[in-house]
């Protein structure tokens, strides 16, 4: 399976449930396209739930950075939720863990956008 993206609304926060692989090709481009589309619609509060991401490569990491920059530059906020050990380790060794606002609890993450 490549990547599966499902968007839902919790209050004024758009939560994107990401499942599968964020790797070079379909996986990373699908995420990029979705985030650009959301920014294009004026969405400012975006929470990426990465709990079901089974694999992410350097291209996928690049897409997270790209998404963060795109959302921030449009005046919005992009935060991360439910990182598994693998994704967390990757963000830590690439020194990106502190760049992102990372949450383990959805309700708390949603509240943090206020």
């Amino acid at each position: 399976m490549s990547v599966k993206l499902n968007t839902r609304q919790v209050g004024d926060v758009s939560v994107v449930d990401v499942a599968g692989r964020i790797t070079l090709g379909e996986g990373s481009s699908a995420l990029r396209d979705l985030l650009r589309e959301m920014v294009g619609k004026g969405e400012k509060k975006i929470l990426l739930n990465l709990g079901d991401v089974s694999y992410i490569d350097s291209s996928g990491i690049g897409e997270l950075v790209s998404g963060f920059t795109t959302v921030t530059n449009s005046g919005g906020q992009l935060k991360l939720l439910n990182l598994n050990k693998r994704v967390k380790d990757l963000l830590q060794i690439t020194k990106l863990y502190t760049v992102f606002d990372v949450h383990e609890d959805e309700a708390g993450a949603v509240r943090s956008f206020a």
Partner: protein
Amino acid sequence: MRENKNHAPETLEKSLDSTLESVDSAEELAVGVAQRAGFDEDDLMKIGMAVRESMVNAVVHGNRYNAHKKVRLLVTHSPERFTIRIADEGEGFDAASIPDPLAPENLMRTSGRGIFLIRSFMDEFEMRHREPQGTEVTLVKYVVSK
């Protein structure tokens, strides 16, 4: 870390097309050999990711998806070392020209982390120019008996 359980040495050699499907195949093949060699889950993840990043470099940056160019994958292991060689037929590039992805000014770059990750996950990494053209990378994971 690999458990020492009398695993028979295995050699795998493949010539792969310059496609993203080959990236998946190479990762799967190398991880399969590593699994049979007795590496644990953590090392299998590291080996798989290092192979994936190396294959992406070979297919995308080396052979530039050229259908006439192949990527050669060679996986071998001895009692001490698990070695993967990946060679493309591209024009080569200077790894030293890749900016340090951990430097504060580069943290928000969207690319340039592949070789850094390979170095992080493997015990040895070497890149050399091939004649008449191409780049070959050698990735080594040490076999440590429990």
